[in-house]
């Protein structure tokens, strides 16, 4: 993980290459230790028919022995034959939910008796340093006590998405102070993927399924026999930061044997072969930009509902809109930021109407931003291959299939002009900080 704006996000300058082993009991001790150190534990947990990413108390909350079948527009929980702790791919939620929350109060203002005004940043005194995620009893995730987050069971695609969010929200001319505050203190326990889902293609996007960096502690769960007791789970452990190493002094562990290390490598290699989806990224940006006016976009537009689900589940989509509210007394006003999406009419509304009138144009904006223009803007694709947009599209529109169809259309029309190569030097990362956030952060 790179240094961003002088903040060491994961201080892994001195990566420790030793491989260690912990058991399920060791993991329990680890999670308890994080809680004791004041972290708010967020991890996988069963709820409402899915493996959610939400508050957990400890290792007993993990969906041990569960997995999920994922296909385009389809997700179903299923029992596994073994007692794996992390035997599933990503669910509907991503870290974005916590680090770039769906609703956030930016500031509020009270008119006092003298008709003067006082305003503040919206942060609760002694509470969340990163602004005030709207409290609502229908959204318990944001009402729980704020604190530095410890994310447990973070997948490689999610780490890649985090690096992209860091680039977008911290690495350019505008720094998002809310993201910065939430991001700075978080502790990451990552897990390599052993059981990819039917919509996963992280291998194609070079994001997974193995772990590289960007975590404090990294786990790879070793296979067990279905007849082993649930307590028999063993996990390879890699240290990714000084903070991770320091915490490890409180956790029972032992060095890994050569056989265990080899077994861990097999788990990841097997996962790489089991990806449900594939996306050929070679020259994809140029090919997509060559078919801007292809009738295929209308074909996708006819199937698309314009519901915004794909953008909101995507771990890298960052667009927001601001809303102002007042109260009945006329003494109070506040400004809230909420997730927005390029699939709405308001998103591209300027004087006279929306720039993107139809779903075809909106789908094109989404697909091109993720797979083509993100390169020009941020120096990488905006997709990490997590498959969420495919699984959670209510009508199963498949980004990997649509991109492949469009790329094939480009290949079959050799007469079309090709796009210039992406600017290899993305925007500078050490620009001066502006005084205020732009009202609306869009593509």
């Amino acid at each position, binding site marked *: 993980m790179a240094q961003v704006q002088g903040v060491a996000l994961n201080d892994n300058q001195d990566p420790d290459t030793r491989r260690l082993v912990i058991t399920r009991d060791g993991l329990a001790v680890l999670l308890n230790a994080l809680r004791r150190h004041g972290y708010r534990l967020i991890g996988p947990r069963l709820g409402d028919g899915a493996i959610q990413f939400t508050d957990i108390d400890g290792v007993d909350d993990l969906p041990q022995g569960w997995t999920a079948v994922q296909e385009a527009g389809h997700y179903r929980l299923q029992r596994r034959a073994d007692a794996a702790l992390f035997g599933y791919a990503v669910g*509907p939620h991503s870290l974005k939910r916590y680090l770039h929350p769906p609703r956030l109060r930016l500031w509020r203002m009270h008119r006092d008796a003298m008709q003067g005004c006082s305003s503040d940043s919206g942060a609760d005194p002694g509470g969340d340093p990163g602004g005030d995620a709207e409290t609502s009893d229908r959204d318990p995730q944001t009402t729980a006590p704020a604190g530095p987050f410890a994310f447990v069971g973070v997948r490689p695609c999610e780490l890649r998405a985090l690096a992209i969010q860091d680039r977008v929200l911290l690495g350019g001319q505008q720094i998002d102070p809310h993201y910065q505050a939430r991001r700075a203190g978080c502790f990451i326990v990552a897990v390599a993927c052993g059981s990819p889902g039917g919509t996963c293609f992280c291998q194609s996007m070079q994001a997974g399924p193995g772990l590289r960096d960007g975590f404090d502690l990294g786990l790879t769960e070793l296979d067990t026999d279905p007849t082993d007791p649930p307590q028999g789970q063993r996990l390879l452990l890699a240290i990714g930061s000084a903070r991770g190493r320091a915490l490890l002094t409180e956790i029972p562990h032992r060095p890994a044997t050569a056989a265990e290390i080899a077994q861990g490598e097999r788990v990841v290699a097997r996962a790489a072969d089991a990806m449900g989806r594939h996306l050929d990224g070679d020259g994809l940006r140029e090919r997509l930009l060559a078919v801007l006016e292809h009738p295929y976009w209308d074909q996708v537009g006819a199937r698309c*509902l314009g519901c915004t*689900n794909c953008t909101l589940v995507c771990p890298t989509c960052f667009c927001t809109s601001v809303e102002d509210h007042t109260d009945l007394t006329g003494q109070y006003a506040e400004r809230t930021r909420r997730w927005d999406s390029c699939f709405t009419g308001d998103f591209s509304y300027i004087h006279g109407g929306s720039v993107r009138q139809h779903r075809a144009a909106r789908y094109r904006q989404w697909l091109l931003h993720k797979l083509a223009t993100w390169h020009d803007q941020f120096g990488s694709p905006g997709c990490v291959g997590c498959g969420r947009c495919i699984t959670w599209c209510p009508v199963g529109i498949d980004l990997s299939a649509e991109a492949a169809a469009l790329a094939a259309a480009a290949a079959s029309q050799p007469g079309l002009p090709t796009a210039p190569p992406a600017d290899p030097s993305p925007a500078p990362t050490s620009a001066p900080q502006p005084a205020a956030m732009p009202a609306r952060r869009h593509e």
Partner: protein
Amino acid sequence: MTKPRRPTLAVWKFASCDGCQLTLLDCEEELLAVAGAVEIARFLEATRAVRPGPYDISLVEGSITTAADRDRIQAVRRESGLLVAIGACAAGGGIQALRNRASLAELTAAVYARPDYLDTLAESTPIAEHVPVDYELRGCPIAKGQLLEVITALLAGRQPVLPPHSVCHDCKLAGQVCVMVAQGIPCLGPLTQAGCGALCPGFQRGCYGCFGPMEQPNRPALDHWLRALGVGTAAAGRLDGRFDPRLQALAEDTGD
């Protein structure tokens, strides 16, 4: 210095069940503040005392189903500064618009002993088909938060925040797991305008569309998918969007 005059508020009822008006009384905590901010000049559900018009803000509940009401809405419009249609009946014609799809004579004969006593129009129609409407609050019933949003916005002289995007958008903001994808429950959320906070999916059931069509609903695409999923006739019947006939009409639409 005299305090500025409080704006006057009137509540009107047409063909409806009173549920939307009751949302105003349901603002328990905020009700005193509402009464402090506006002069409630006409609200028969709360008090028989009626102050004469004109009124700054009129909340109009219900659809137009009789010739008398067709005339009365014109009078209400003349007496009102801003006219806000509240609820699925006022906005779309309501559940009583189910009759628009059948023969009135057959229906009244089936329901009433003496249908000749009835004096009614053949169709139930939304307020906007008769007079200009300034704002429309959707839902059966309306959402309390949206009612307060409109009132506070009008008081502050700002535009109310009433996004026309889908229920799905709010469903995802709330962090809910999609019931259609994860449980195969048919849901009208992708076609329906937000405002309820994705209430039904939050209780593990599909949205039945009471907030009416979102900005650009694509019903053929959703119908096609549901048929492929093998959604049974009972579920498909429930998907008719009976609370807002505009969603029903979309079944024959081609989208955009």
